[in-house]
């Protein structure tokens, strides 16, 4: 009988397991949600630099990450997924703040919550969508 793979002590989570979980769309969605909660809490608690840096990561890189990962098969490039994650995060944040500005509610914490909700909402709606079958590029 083959030995069981070693994954760390019972009840612990290894770095490898975390990274593998982040490699899936649901895993990334959970991470983004958790990061958003921590960010909002840090901002609400008045941790200026820490909260600001967390918000920078969240609003300029993470909130669009699940949607960008869904597009992975579409663009077929890890580096492009990262770039699209940044672009979509900034885009979702821009749309979120526009909504808040209309209602004169552009508060720091509210922006983090709204942009995170946008990103997670879209990703949860689209995560089950199937990409059309790939076809090779035509020969030149």
């Amino acid at each position: 009988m083959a030995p069981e793979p070693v994954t760390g002590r019972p009840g612990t989570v290894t770095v490898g397991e975390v990274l593998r979980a982040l490699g899936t769309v649901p895993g990334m969605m959970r991470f983004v949600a958790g990061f958003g909660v921590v960010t909002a809490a840090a901002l609400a608690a008045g941790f200026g630099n820490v909260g600001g840096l967390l918000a920078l990561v969240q609003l300029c890189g993470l909130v669009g990450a699940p949607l960008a990962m869904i597009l992975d098969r579409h663009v077929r490039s890890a580096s492009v997924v990262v770039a699209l994650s940044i672009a979509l995060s900034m885009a979702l944040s821009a749309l979120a703040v526009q909504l808040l500005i209309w209602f004169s509610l552009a508060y720091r914490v509210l922006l983090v919550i709204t942009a995170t909700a946008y990103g997670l909402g879209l990703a949860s709606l689209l995560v089950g969508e199937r990409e059309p079958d790939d076809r090779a590029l035509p020969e030149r």
Partner: protein
Amino acid sequence: MTATRPRRSPVPAESRWPLPETASGWLGLGLALVAVVAGCIGARLTQSADVDGYGIIRALPPLYWTGIVVGAVATSLLALAVVAGQRQLGWLIPAVWLVLFHLAPQLAHAHARFSIVYIHMGFIRLIDTQHTGDVLVDARFAWPGFFGAFLSSLAPMSQGVLEIVMRLWPATITGASASLVAALARRSYPTQPLIGPLSALVFILASWTGQDYFSPQSVGFFFYLSIIVVVEGGPLRARGAWSSVAPVLSRFATAGGDRTEARSVPSYVALIVLCFAAVVSHPLAPFFICAGLAMLGLYGRRVAWRLMLMVAVGYVIWVLVAAEPWWSTQLDDLKQQFGSLSNVATASVERGAVPSVAHAFVLRIRTFFGLAVFVGTLVVGSAMATKRFSHLRPTLPLAPLAGIPVVAAAVQSYGGEMIIRVFLFTLPMASILFARVLLTIPRRALPISLAASVAGLTPIFLLARFGNEAFEMTTEADWQAVEVLYANAEPGTLIIADNSFLPWGDRGRENQSLEPRYSVAQTSARWLQGLRGQAPLELNDGGHDGFVEVETSQEPYLSDQVIVVFTPSQSAWLEHVEGEPARKLDVVGAWMAQQPGVTVLYQNSGAWVLQVKP
């Protein structure tokens, strides 16, 4: 809910981790690290006082240039390893030059360069204070998406952390854009494995416009690239979808024109999000997005037509509704700028009408650099359209995509900066075409050719990209002057400055009580004459009406106090761009300080902050 991430085929060992396998690879990697460290430390040691009309180039210390030389050698060695089969090392080459060209020079001064960065930060703080944005305070609030997106992150930061973020921004956004350029390159030449890193390198080396600072423009450009990548990212499906201009267009791309794309719902959603974000973030980016989408539409991408229609309608509605308070008061000015190519050219030229000798040289370098790219793109694109060079033809219509932004120049002069924006949006496609031409060089000669190219291009790039440093950098004196100004200004204070090259934070703008009046000092000779008789220098009017405005305005702040702020950056603008005598504002400041009723609040290194109570 299930994960849809597809299983990847086993990743080739070479793309897992970019560790070298040969001596040249290891040596190249080591020298690349040395180059990056030397470049950054060298740039940090730059003395701001040594910056002159040629920009930063003569102020950079020998250590920075050591970094450039070592970087060129590292490029050659890495290219050698790449040619030998270690393709994964190819990405190190653009990374090294991204740091040397776009990050290191940002570290040269005490504060983040380009004072407009601080104005944008002021807008963010204003939204943070008011929880909304008032378009009547500034037209840019009609497109607040960019500012608001950074509300939660930048507003709570201390100034020190903020300065670090601002310095990292240009390299970050340029690097992210370069990765999208590489993706387009791979799509354009799927059989050329080196085209990605090489296109990214060309893009990094040729990005001299400086539009990568913390601004809506940099993000609008990033959105544009993202949209093109997603539109062109999906698989193609055979189907006749050529437009009526097919016979002409088919000469610029080998495939795709006779096919339409299969597209998934997530990609549609991503495109819609990106398009609407562009509409609410920047007034100019939607023009270029529409132009690019129209070109792709002509090549049979039906989704491009739909998106273009959506962006166009969305933009018109947005301008009519959100920006109405602004354009309704600026209608005459906008009508003058609309649709006149000559106006665009005139406005672009007039910006440097009487420059200093040094600045004239910088302007010539910029002109030649820009022309070289435009003409090169035209020549390469045309050559690829011929039968003889048809083997170099891309699968995407790169040459038409590079040319279409010129259409935007007919629409608006954009304060004389439209030509620069056109260049910016032309560059990604041009970079891919140039990279393909570079790949025609025999493999043996490629390493030394690359090293010679980057080394030769360095002074040209530094002159073009950082040639305006004398008035675009933010010195400690600039910063302190504004700090003192705001510390002493009170509601009702009129602030007078010669031009906008100051790190205004826009404090006090929420009720327009501290609204700076740029260009007033150009006519301030008359104001000074009216105040105390003869000014020490004869100042030209320059067509500005600031003085008249100040005199005739009935606004209450005129009767309280006036604060005049002159700084070295403003003087540098007058000297190098307007052709005025050097240190003119310093002389005027010294004279003003002698006048009764004038209190010197701050004076250091050519910076003056003077309080006047007539």
